[in-house]
């Protein structure tokens, strides 16, 4: 994928090269977006948006960078944009609906179950995903990239353009916050524990 010839063909807007790029990356981009936004339709839209943005910005892509990190970064940015849009919609209610048309807020989403979760873990995973939604934005992204997409700390640091130490700290805080949130949940819903 770092093949300079392939990148040159992409920058010349070769449809065949673009087709290869989509074929190679679509599942990883979709899975990443799905982990962050927790909605299949939104993740599908974001995946399309990512490749459309990549196609438009190919001439600005620096050949020495890894296309993977670049695509992941676009995915994270698009997902964050959507989450912020839903948060604004929740905060400003009717005003936002007049200004930007009808739309959903994140609280409207049903419990999310990732299609790749093992059958016996589905119920626990739904509770965990619900707790992930309440994490601060950066913690939510770092945790999703690690747990859902299976990326290493170094890869997450490249995507978020942070130092590895900062990412490790984000992940640690995310885990601690999730444990507190889950403990509260099980204390309030004892029949489920």
């Amino acid at each position, binding site marked *: 994928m770092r093949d300079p010839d392939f990148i040159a063909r992409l920058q010349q807007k070769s449809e065949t090269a673009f087709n290869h790029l989509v074929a190679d990356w679509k599942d990883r*981009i979709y899975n990443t977006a799905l982990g962050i936004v927790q909605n299949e339709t939104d993740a*599908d839209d974001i995946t399309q948006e990512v490749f459309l943005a990549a196609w438009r910005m190919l001439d600005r892509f620096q050949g020495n960078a890894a296309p993977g990190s670049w695509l992941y970064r676009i995915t994270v940015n698009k997902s964050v944009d959507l989450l912020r849009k839903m948060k604004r919609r929740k905060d400003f209610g009717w005003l936002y609906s007049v*200004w930007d048309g009808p739309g959903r807020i994140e609280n409207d989403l049903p419990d999310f179950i990732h299609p790749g979760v093992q059958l016996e873990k589905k119920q626990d995973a739904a*509770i965990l995903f619900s707790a992930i939604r309440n994490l601060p934005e950066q913690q939510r992204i770092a945790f999703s990239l690690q747990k859902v997409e299976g990326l290493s700390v170094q890869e997450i640091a490249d995507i978020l353009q942070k130092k590895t130490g900062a990412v490790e700290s984000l992940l640690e805080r995310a885990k601690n916050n999730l444990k507190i949130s889950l403990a509260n949940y099980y204390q309030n819903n004892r029949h489920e524990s």
Partner: protein
Amino acid sequence: MNHNNNLEKRVEKTMESLDGLVPATASPYLYTKIRGRLSEDDSAWSIIAGKLSNPATAIVLAMVILLLNAWLLLSKPETGHESVQDQLSDLAYDYNFEPSAIAEQNNVQP
């Protein structure tokens, strides 16, 4: 104590529920959808229609038209005043209404 241990175990079990997760796969029609959107984007009319169909743009456009109308209406009275003056002058001229001439007619001769 026992309750706390159970709670801790339950939380740990939930935290591990994403272990062994199989990555989700994108729609098989994704490339077709992207190609469709790329060809849609190329049309200038679709860009204009897309912008105009946005409620925010429509509201801004309506505000601009209203402001333009208000500005035109507010700038009218000055020209209206001038035309009234013109009409009075025309009327005075048509009827030979000249105040100085009337004053002269009533002059008492010594």
